[in-house]
């Protein structure tokens, strides 16, 4: 469904040139959820931004369902591929009601029957019609993220790109949102890419994942291997160990790097 071949994204020029994504290749099958994990600055979000057309400066190959990604992507692309962002406070227009936020994608794509679609999608994400004329500041963090998911789903896309969708939420709310994503994915047969720094979230949601470091994929594995601790590279093994909590012996192994 999604093919990425030798993707490269760089920022700046001359001495300040940074290769944020430095030759990344992977494929995601139809209906599969693929995870991209790594630490800050490893390029995982940049990959996602290139995939959804938010970052036009890339080279390499990206195709969705066999169709190469155009630059800039055409309107039809956005009907098939939608994104949910990390921060539900920053990704919603503060002066648009829920109704306006959900109606806008429909208006842009010239889709009729708006009333029915809005009511339906609100119901599906568990918000209900009572939320239709509220503003984002009247919603909790979890409700805002439900709205962001509703906005992505209202165009009935085939692919959902998720950039840290729950890292701004409390764990009990995170569980609700992850369950919602699981349900939506199954009901609509979505293909997803999930970017997260949280290995537990990726292990819960994904079928396969790639561990990124400094703009490259250092290891690709399936979730069963992750759960069994069968990582191959030192970096992925360390990341997995550090994700399990604090351990005095283990902490001594992590070398302090003064990269400033």
């Amino acid at each position: 469904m999604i093919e990425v071949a030798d993707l490269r994204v760089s920022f700046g020029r001359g001495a300040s040139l940074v290769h944020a994504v430095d030759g990344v290749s992977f494929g995601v099958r139809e209906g599969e959820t693929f995870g991209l994990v790594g630490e800050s600055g490893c390029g995982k979000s940049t990959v996602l931004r290139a995939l959804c057309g938010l970052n036009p400066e890339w080279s390499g190959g990206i195709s969705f369902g066999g169709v190469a990604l155009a630059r800039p992507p055409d309107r039809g692309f956005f009907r098939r591929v939608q994104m949910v962002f990390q921060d539900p406070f920053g990704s919603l227009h503060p002066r648009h009601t829920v109704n306006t936020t959900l109606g806008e994608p429909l208006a842009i794509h010239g889709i009729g029957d708006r009333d029915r679609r809005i009511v339906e999608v609100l119901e599906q994400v568990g918000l209900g019609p009572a939320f239709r004329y509220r503003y984002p500041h009247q919603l909790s963090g979890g409700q805002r993220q439900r709205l962001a998911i509703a906005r992505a789903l209202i165009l009935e896309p085939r692919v959902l790109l998720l950039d840290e969708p729950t890292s701004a939420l409390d764990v009990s709310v995170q569980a609700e949102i992850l369950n919602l994503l699981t349900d939506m994915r199954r009901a609509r047969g979505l293909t997803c890419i999930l970017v997260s720094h949280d290995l537990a979230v990726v292990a819960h949601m994904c079928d396969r994942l790639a561990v990124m470091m400094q703009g490259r994929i250092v290891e690709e594995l399936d979730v069963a291997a992750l759960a069994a601790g069968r990582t191959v590279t030192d970096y992925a093994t360390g990341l997995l160990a550090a994700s399990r909590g604090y351990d005095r012996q283990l902490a001594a192994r992590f070398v302090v790097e003064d990269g400033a």
Partner: protein
Amino acid sequence: MSDPQLFVDDLHVRFRTPQRMVHAVRGVSFTVGREKVGIVGESGSGKSTVGRAILRLTAPNATVAARRMEFQGVDLAGASETAMLKVRGRRIGMIMQDPRYALDPVMRVGEQIGEALDGRGLSAAVRREQVLAMLEAVRIRNPQRVYDLYPHEVSGGMGQRIMIAMMLLPEPDLMIADEPTSALDVTVRMQVLAILDELVTSRGLGLIFISHDLNLVASFCDRVLIMYSGRIVEECRAEELAAARHPYTRGLLASLPRIEARRERLAVLQRDPAWLDG
């Protein structure tokens, strides 16, 4: 547990807002010795307010009341502002979540760490030496170079170590760390925790570790207090957290995704109004 240094008994914090009185902390009691005590809870549970109330750093619209709030013989609830100045930063230090906001952006790192030594009549050279020694203690490899950097030139993990160095310089006996590693990557988090761990062990520091991360607190702290809606609903040894009894704690644990045990759906916390009173 060693002898407690900090006693908090029946702490209440209320915020006056134009609409109503918000009772953010409702009768919290605990003690802290030379150990790592974790306070866990979700947003709005009052965990950060407890940390701030101990140092009387709450906003002006807050009223803090307690039957007893005492640190090494000083009555923190009743002490004058002048008396609090002798406690704050000197005997009780505080580490905030995000070093980018907590450090002065237009002052070199070394100079702002050195401010902690103001009023001791030290010569510039001695002061610099002490700052450098402290930077080394928090495992900064090249203290000479880092001394002259500005906060925007250091990484998040180093910024947090700089904060720790600054707080340690006056040699406090108790440190309050409010989500000190939440903004950090997991591997950097390990390094910062290792430094805090060593300080508690080697310097006999008491640590209050405020966090939303149950797994982290369970693996790092000695004791855990679980807060819900302004109250401590459960207290247990950290290694026994998995066997917690309160339905809220159990619900939180069940809602966590786990790497090694995948489930189709995560358990969703059903909040019981009865938890508000117990």
